[in-house]
């Protein structure tokens, strides 16, 4: 199985992107998953619909979002993408906004992604690493952290 480093490629990493709102952040992060055939367009739209329905369940920590849906919503295979935002945007969680790191995830079952999800969570636990992700200019900067 691919590890996080192998999954984060020039096709699945976009850094310092300007977005106008949280929906655009999810769509850009999601578009990278769609373009590597990891999920369908519906999978990404389901994430936005679910946030509209139940609230921003995808914000996991200050400044960090993990957009994802259920496997049956259109996931083809396990894949992560990373989007960092030039100007952080609010997702609607008072204490955790604004968000500037978006790890989008597509997973086809509830087991195979555990290892890479753990990797993402561990990266995000370290303040210094989070700062370096925010400041990263190139994919090499990201790979150095992995």
């Amino acid at each position: 199985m691919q590890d996080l480093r192998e999954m984060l490629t020039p096709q699945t990493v976009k850094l310092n992107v300007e977005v106008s709102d949280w929906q655009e952040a999810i769509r850009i992060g999601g578009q990278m998953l769609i373009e590597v055939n990891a999920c369908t367009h519906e999978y990404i739209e389901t994430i936005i619909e679910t946030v509209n329905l139940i609230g921003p369940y995808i914000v996991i920590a200050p400044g960090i979002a993990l957009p994802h849906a259920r496997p049956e919503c259109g996931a083809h295979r396990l894949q992560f993408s990373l989007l960092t935002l030039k100007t952080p945007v609010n997702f609607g969680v008072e204490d955790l906004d604004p968000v500037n790191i978006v790890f989008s995830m597509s997973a086809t079952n509830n087991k195979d992604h555990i290892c890479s999800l753990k990797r993402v969570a561990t990266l995000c636990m370290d303040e210094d690493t989070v700062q370096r992700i925010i400041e990263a200019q190139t994919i090499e900067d990201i790979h150095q952290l992995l």
Partner: protein
Amino acid sequence: MFKILTVCANGMGSSMILQMVLEPIINDMKLKDNVQIECISAGQAAGMISSTDLILCSEQLHGMFDIPEGKVLVTIRNLIDKNEIRGKVHSAITENFPQLLQSGGK
């Protein structure tokens, strides 16, 4: 066996992260052999809450499922903040299930 459920919208993200962060905390509390942690979606939670002692979810999901009397809900703001989770889980157990800490489990 003392049962902890971590719950999120679809059982794939937040609940798994909570479980990952919680496991070493439970180990540190020397409760590993007496506590079972499971992660599930809010939809599945309804059927499992009756056999659960403690429920953890993110603050954003508070109110998404009913908590019957006798069950304790802990809501977490930052899902990867070990200190927040350790503090809240420790006080919830001390307050509601002191026998777990004294006897080293049920």
